[in-house]
């Protein structure tokens, strides 16, 4: 094996994910997401009014000093609704996605360990994946009715096969590696291999997928609420706000800008984070 070309055969260095995250696009992503998250968390402090408070200042106002993003058709302050609306999306992103990821990973783990579990798991994954995301959303929403819970269930259901397959592939491929075989020969149990070798080496790809899924979750909430099968009025969410803004687009153009920007910041932010982590992984 010649020198420079032999570099390809050298072992991978463990990735510097944390470093990558704090540079370049990773940093931009973190900042974008961070701003929106903070805005949502600090809503009670930052919002000038309540999310459903109907005011006497008039409806469908354009941007004024008292109402930076105007008011909607029932005289609610759009800025406040935006800040509180972000919270709904935060719930979906930071609770529903991890739950789906956890369940999916567990199923994937079981599938990679026992043959019969594998068959059942694969069929279930196939079933869920046979529904394009939005079609799945419509199906579940028809059964369960609209609402935040429905949106969460849709996201959880959509994440399960993704993480399930990811973990399953990861476990199966790491198990074949020579150093894992060396451990197995000496007496390492499956559990040991999982804990000591599979998990640390899979963590990176799991994190990348987590970021991607969070980006998709915002999209799903937005699409569902936009179609009327997501968050129920009067609760504000980014999707419902865009929907409202679209309805009034000829009259009060500014209304749609706020939630649009928030959605883009979140989706783009998570995407950039996932890209920078993915790059770090590839070394």
């Amino acid at each position, binding site marked *: *094996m*010649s*020198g*420079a*070309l*032999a570099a390809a*055969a*050298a*072992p*991978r*260095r*463990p990735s510097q994910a944390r470093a990558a995250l704090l540079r370049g696009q990773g940093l931009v992503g973190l900042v974008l997401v961070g701003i929106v998250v903070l805005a949502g968390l600090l809503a009670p402090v930052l919002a000038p009014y309540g999310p459903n408070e109907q005011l006497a200042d008039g409806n469908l106002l354009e941007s004024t000093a008292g109402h930076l993003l105007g008011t909607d058709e029932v005289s609610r302050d759009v800025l406040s609704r935006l800040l509180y609306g972000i919270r709904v999306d935060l719930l979906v992103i930071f609770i529903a996605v991890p739950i789906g990821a956890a369940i999916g990973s567990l199923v994937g783990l079981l599938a990679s360990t026992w043959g019969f579990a594998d068959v059942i798991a694969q069929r279930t994954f196939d079933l869920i994946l046979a529904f394009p995301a939005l079609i799945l959303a419509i199906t579940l929403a028809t059964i369960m009715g609209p609402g935040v819970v429905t949106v969460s269930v849709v996201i959880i259901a959509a994440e399960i096969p993704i993480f399930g397959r990811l973990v399953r592939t990861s476990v199966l491929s790491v198990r074949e*590696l*020579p*150093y*894992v*075989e*060396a*451990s*197995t*020969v*000496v*007496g*390492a*149990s499956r559990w*040991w291999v999982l804990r*000591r*070798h599979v998990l*640390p*080496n899979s963590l990176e790809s799991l994190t990348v997928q987590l970021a991607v899924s969070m980006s998709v979750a915002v999209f799903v909430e937005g699409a569902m609420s936009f179609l009327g099968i997501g968050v129920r009025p009067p609760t504000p969410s980014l999707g419902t706000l865009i929907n409202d803004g679209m309805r009034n687009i000829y009259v009060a153009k500014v209304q749609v800008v706020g939630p649009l920007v928030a959605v883009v910041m979140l989706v783009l932010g998570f995407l950039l984070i996932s890209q920078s982590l993915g790059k770090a992984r590839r070394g």
Partner: protein
Amino acid sequence: MAERLLEIRDLAIDFAHPRPAVNGIDLDLDRGEIVALVGESGSGKSMTARAILGLLPEGARARGSIRLEGQEVLGLPETELDRLRGERVAMVFQEPQTALNPVRTVGWQIREALRAHRKVSRREARARAIELLARVEIPEPEVRVGYYPHQLSGGQKQRVVLALALANDPVLLLADEPTTALDVTVQAEILELLRGLRDETGAGILLVTHNMGVVAAVADRVVVLKTGDVVETAATGALFAAPAHAYTRQLLSAVPRLPEPGDPVRLVEPVATVGEPTLRYEDASVVYPGRHGQAAFAAVDSVTLALAPAEVLGLVGESGSGKTTLGRVAAGLVPLSTGSVWIEGEDLAAIGRARLREIRRDLAFVPQDPAASLDPRMTVAESIAEPLDIHSVGDRAARRARVAELLEAVRLAAEHGSRLPHELSGGQRQRVALARALALRPRLVIADEPTSALDVSVQAEVLALFAELQRELGFACLFISHDLAVIYEVADRVAVMRRGSVVESGPIEQVFANPTHPYSRALIAAVPEPVPSSPAGAGLGEMAS
């Protein structure tokens, strides 16, 4: 014919790499000459060959002069280079498995090679393709011309690569480790082919290799490279008879050799045959069921073999012989389809999981691939300590002490313990793998080609270390390798495998001196010896099998 075919002067190649790859070398090659460019990894031999074609990797810069029949080629623009690539100079690469486009037929690829330099009709191209395939001795060329690469064997693929290189009758052929990835019998055939081509066409061949046996078999002259510098240039006979430079001498002495008829017979201490063999196969078979209408495939076919305590049994064979699968059966990684395997008197299939776990304390496995024989996230100390951790042996202090002991035994400095695998060289990683294997004082070690991916001099060191440790600690070892000379160095007994069966087995001296089975004889004869016996064709097949 006034100018030389190839004249390289003061060639230097730089990378972003810390050290320059090539440091100002000179090299000459005449028509009808086979020159071997020899060196270990990092010597710059491949880079030199690629520089002639202008195929250096991204970020590499070359300086100096490369003249092909008097014309300067270094620094030519891409369009000019395209014209001479494949037509005046052609190259053959190392890995035949991946050198061909998998979604195009052989005939299509040859046609593309022809089309790059002249107009040919489909019919002409096909006729030429068949002619070329016949020239490289591929059977039934009219049929194979329509084949896809995956339908050919490794040796046949390499012949196709040769055919591609010869398509436009180049005057200079560059061969970069053309036989390294091939079985030893196939290697002999390909080398024979190269010699024949040189004789027929009068082309010059620059053969890049690390294998001194190959050099002795075909080369007229040798150029020895070490980390980018030429340390010695000589005719083959002269170089082997009286190497001038210390590095050349070191390289030659590190090459493991098969016994010569005049060699003194090595004394092998008789191994205790009393008591239970450490490892025993009884009519063992591993059969993989056929998928989608294909026939079932027997990777291991009715093998009966035994390994005594403290004995080293070499399992040797070419690819597909089943030697790796057989070793993995003993390691408990692959289940048997029929027959049984016994470790220290216990049938692996019959005992329960708890007992199996106990037995595993006496087992160890040394894998081949230096890139993945260690977990990239664990430090050297953690990797070595892993077997101790798995079985909860002793307390923290005891384990630390044992790790230090093991590091010393494999001759690594204590500070290596805190390093990560990517910070070590291939040889160092294999020493760590060895230390890990010995952590629990195993009674049976299964070594699967542990040195095959290492440079010759590094391999020699690791093998010497291994032999010493085996003598000292007295473990039995199943040593798997495709390299007969390596087996000769370390094994007490040898079993030759072919297509899943053991064709011959016995004490090493006996089998190598007087092989009885025709396949063993062919195998031994095919190994190119680092001893040139005559200018044209040395050490190769006196044996027609």
